[in-house]
């Protein structure tokens, strides 16, 4: 599969009054054409920062893309001029966010907002735009699209707003859709509708999806490949089947048990002790070692590099690298 997106050694730093934070550190991955890749992690894992960095949406200052390359269709995003970047954003790469109410402008009609994308990227005239907006709304399953187009975001429910966001994202038939927790703010029955919609549109337009989420249930249902992040670094990668059936990193294992509410000891759940470390107070060595049940002294001394334990299965864990679990 040829890659739509290739990220190499991406590093994002934030300068704060309490010191410099490495929000994303040495992150590399690729997204193939038409592929859905999930970037999974908890708060502070760097997954959303990485997603924003892909479109150079990190506020500078305090943030800075300190190193790395982001190759999209062969061009390095980090080397683009502002006007070139604008063409890519919302054109070839579209992004949808968790909270559609925050991402939509409350004082413009749906028609105007969705239409703006068409004006900017496709240079369409007013009448053609109005028609296309209705078509797009119909495509994403908004009922009575002619009426909805004239309404404002506050007239719409959360699920409808997320559909409008998706319509906007699809307006220019992007090659890559970055979806940052697209269904986290939605109820489960509406979440199912929206995931279903993304899936069918992806198949129809052959678009690749980079899904940012903390919800392993959503990952299991939609992704081809999974990248697990912890404290700014990739700790494991594999196909969805590999990650769910044969997780190698102790953190991935813990996360899966937690997500399945697996009962281990009578009616009790297996716990991951402690909490995600503060970025100002990162432990020495492996960031997960203070919470890890299998850590050895070496884990507390140096950061484990990503090593392939099987073809296509890089894992950043000394213990997992030493032998089969």
């Amino acid at each position, binding site marked *: 599969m040829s890659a739509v997106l290739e990220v190499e050694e991406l590093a994002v730093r934030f300068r704060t009054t309490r010191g410099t934070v490495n929000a994303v550190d040495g992150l590399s991955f690729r997204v193939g054409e038409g592929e859905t890749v999930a970037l999974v992690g*908890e*708060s502070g894992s760097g997954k959303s920062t990485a997603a924003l960095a892909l479109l150079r949406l990190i506020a500078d200052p305090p943030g800075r893309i300190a190193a790395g390359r982001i190759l999209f269709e062969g061009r390095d995003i980090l080397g683009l001029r502002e006007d070139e970047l604008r063409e890519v954003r919302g054109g070839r790469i579209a992004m949808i966010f968790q909270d559609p109410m925050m991402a939509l402008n409350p004082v413009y009609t749906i028609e105007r907002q969705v239409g703006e994308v068409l004006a900017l990227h496709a240079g369409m005239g007013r009448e053609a735009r109005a028609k296309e907006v209705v078509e797009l709304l119909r495509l994403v399953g908004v*009922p009575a699209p002619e009426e909805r187009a004239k309404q404002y975001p506050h007239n719409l*429910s959360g*699920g*409808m707003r997320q559909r409008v966001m998706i319509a906007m994202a699809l307006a220019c038939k992007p090659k890559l859709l970055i979806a940052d927790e697209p269904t986290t703010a939605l*109820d*489960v*029955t*509406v*979440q*199912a*509708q929206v*995931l*279903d919609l993304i899936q069918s549109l992806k198949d129809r337009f052959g678009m690749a999806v980079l899904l940012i989420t*903390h*919800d*392993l*249930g*959503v*990952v*299991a*249902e939609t992704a081809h490949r999974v990248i697990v992040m912890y404290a700014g670094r990739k700790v494991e990668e594999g196909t*969805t*089947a590999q990650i*769910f059936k044969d997780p190698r990193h102790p953190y991935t294992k*813990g*996360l*899966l*048990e*937690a*997500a*399945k*509410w697996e*009962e281990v000891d009578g*009616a*009790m*759940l*297996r*716990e*991951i*002790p402690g*909490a*995600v470390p503060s970025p100002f107070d990162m432990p020495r060595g492996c960031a997960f070692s203070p*919470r890890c049940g299998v850590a050895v002294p070496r884990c507390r001394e140096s950061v484990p590099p990503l090593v392939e334990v099987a073809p296509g299965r890089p894992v950043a864990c000394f213990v997992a690298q030493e032998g089969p679990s």
Partner: protein
Amino acid sequence: MSEGRADVVLEAVDLVKHFPVKHGLFQPARHVHALDGVSFALKRGETLAIVGESGCGKTTLAKCLMRLDEPTGGRVVLLGDDITHLGQGALRGLRRRMQIVFQDPYASLNPRWSIGSIVGDPIRLHEKVPAAERRRRVAELLETVGLDPGYADRHPHELSGGQRQRVAIARALAVNPSVIICDEPVSALDVSIQAQVINLLKRLQAKLGIAYLFISHNLALVEHISDRIAVMYLGQVVELADTRSMRRELLHPYSKALFSAAPVADPDASARRTRIILSGDVPSPVDPPSGCRFRTRCPWKQPRCAAESPALRAVGDRLVRCHFAGEPGFPAPLA
């Protein structure tokens, strides 16, 4: 259900809560039907889960039970006493028996108070004990919830989300309640922290015999923690049964859709499963649909559903609010 009355610690009888909606001078008054006839009985040491999506009334239910909102109709019975119309003074005494833990531990703890004052406050309010005794009890409570007693001198901002939720639980435990209402107690926490808090709640229940009314939208969690599950839709209970029978089979079309829509962290299981994708959104609770409230989204609706509103009736080992649930061949498989 014919449980012994003596075993019941908290009972809701036909609870109704309507909120008035702002209206124009010449427009008729309208109401949000947040709760419409909710009844259940929570037994000693039991966990009853209330599940449903936003707008189903689960949080309003918690507030009405705690009397933080005044119910429009129906009764709340706590340990045999009708508390629906008690004045604030008498209520304070009863709140010792029923406590609440909220979703957001960032909002529910006063940022200016030390952890010791937060946890000790209910003791100060409800019991006249010397300060030294109170400090000793606070230290004990912190240990019970797995925090170092040294945290008593710290402030909420120094704690992580999971630790804050432990503090909220310690505060609830301070007055030895019989019932704790847990309103989405782990939804704001990271996945890896949720198991810690859930295990803590389970351990406390085993040790102290507290009953939990556990409000959640997380179905996998609810299946793990609860003895019984009540599914709510637009202000009404639509299905109520033992967790074990719910796992085996769901009878109400909405319960079926809800549980089938929840993503499972298992690619094989999700491939095997038939998801019921509902069309449309939850209707507005200002003008709930006539007849069955779920009929506007129900894939199996019949003419009768619009004409006649179904009662919550016993079908086998459970209660269901659907005209057709339990009939052979219902619901027919979807194409």
